[in-house]
């Protein structure tokens, strides 16, 4: 009898363990994105890039709109003010050792070829130019308009801020907006891909490389609300402005 009872208990335990193993885990329920958005690739018979993607809460992109002259002026003035704050913060030793109003007077209107190391000319300036470009893109400017605005901003910086320590540099005047815009287009595409990954880690890196998407002035964030009923699947996009 004891043996029989032990056997019953053992078998029951084994069945219970097996049943626990076999029970499906309670994964959060989600509908693949391809059931909501039909991509042109899938309708043409190609691989669907939306297949099995997570549903994002927001969709990130870039808007392009017209801007008034006043708005352009305010943007440039705002960036100009920021450069006056950022320059001494980012290069305190240079500003302290080489900066003076006497230098400012002497360097005013001068244009030279600078002899800086490649670190400055090929890394720092294009990176700064790319972030300027992305700032204007976030504010609704087209790519070419963003390049033009970045050119104006960097020229103002070169001729009226940096001359506190050194004369304006030909390479910096050209390379900051131009190489910066080319780099900016690359960062823009990569950041949009990461931000639309539907993944918090992807969004983190997307915002990290393109910080302008974090701020209130970014115009390309769209709330995405999927809708389901018996007959159809659809989505509502909410633009905030």
């Amino acid at each position, binding site marked *: 009898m004891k043996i029989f009872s032990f056997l019953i208990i053992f078998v029951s335990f084994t069945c219970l363990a097996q049943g626990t193993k076999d029970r499906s885990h309670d994964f959060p329920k989600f509908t693949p994105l391809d059931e909501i958005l039909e991509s042109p690739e899938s309708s043409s018979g190609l691989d669907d890039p939306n297949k099995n993607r997570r549903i994002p809460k927001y969709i990130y992109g870039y808007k392009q709109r017209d801007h008034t002259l006043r708005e352009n002026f305010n943007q440039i003035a705002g960036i100009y003010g920021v450069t006056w704050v950022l320059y001494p913060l980012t290069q305190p030793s*240079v500003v302290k050792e080489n900066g003076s109003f006497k230098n400012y007077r002497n360097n005013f209107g001068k244009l030279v*070829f*600078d*002899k*800086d*190391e*490649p*670190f*400055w*000319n090929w890394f720092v300036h294009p990176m700064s130019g790319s972030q300027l470009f992305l700032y204007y893109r976030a504010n609704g400017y087209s*790519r*070419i308009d963003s*390049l*033009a605005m970045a050119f104006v901003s960097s020229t103002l910086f070169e001729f009226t801020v940096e001359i506190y320590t050194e004369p304006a540099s*030909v*390479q910096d005047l*050209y*390379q900051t907006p*131009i*190489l910066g*815009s*080319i780099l900016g*287009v690359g960062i823009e595409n990569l950041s949009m891909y990461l931000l639309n990954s539907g993944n918090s880690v992807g969004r983190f890196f997307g915002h990290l490389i393109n910080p302008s998407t974090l701020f209130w002035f970014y115009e390309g964030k769209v709330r995405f609300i999927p809708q389901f009923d018996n007959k159809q699947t659809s989505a509502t996009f909410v633009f905030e402005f």
Partner: protein
Amino acid sequence: MKYLFLVLLFINSFYALADSGIKKSAKKTAEKVEEKISSKGKELVDKIGDERIKKLDEGIHKVSRILHKNHLALKAGANFSANRLETKANTDDHYTGYGFNTHFGYHWSQLEISGSSYIHYGKAEELQYIVNDNVISGEGTVQFVSISPMIRFHTNWEPKQNYRFYIGGGPIWSIETVKLQDYNNSVGAFQEETKITYESSGGILVFGVEEQTPFKEMHPVFIEVAFVYQSSFRVSTVDISKVAETNILTTQRSFDDLETYNIMFSLGITVF
């Protein structure tokens, strides 16, 4: 009776096999016919599709010849260059360089005004420079950075369909930086971790072809050959021991101390 049953069973099986064989072969034949029809159909669809795409392309390019461009555009490309350096210290060195170029300007239908920059890096082996009356010789890397306001005139001649020939030119200013890695100097006054920079000016002449598209968003291609001549007007030595600081040691006038001849082959696209 038993044998009759077996015979009937045998006959039945025989007919069943034959029937299935007939059905299979009929199915195969039907499949073959269907495949032939569908492949013929596919070929026809592809042919119609290709013809329509070709007509559309021709139409687009006909329109592009009529449309005025009138837009700002940024172009970028990669370049390969063959370079010659001549110095007053009787250096006549050749080196090849690899780099990139950018052009930002306004396009009308036949005229283009742009600010261009050509950059390349190379290694030269028989360099001899005079700096502060010292002769410094050795091998090292050469960095060439130039800026040039240019005018390009796009002709109507198309050496290849939809690619228009253009000619252009303008003044050019550059800074050539030489970092000597293995050197001897006559007086011993040249420091280690020092680079020499030559500021030069001259002229550039370009010939090329550019794809004609109605919209710059189609990223038209350009292929270009550029000829550059420059002579120096200033030479400096710069201390490069600290990356974050630029410490200019000496600067002096240097007329014709360095003459450079460059031929640059570029291939690129309109970015936006």
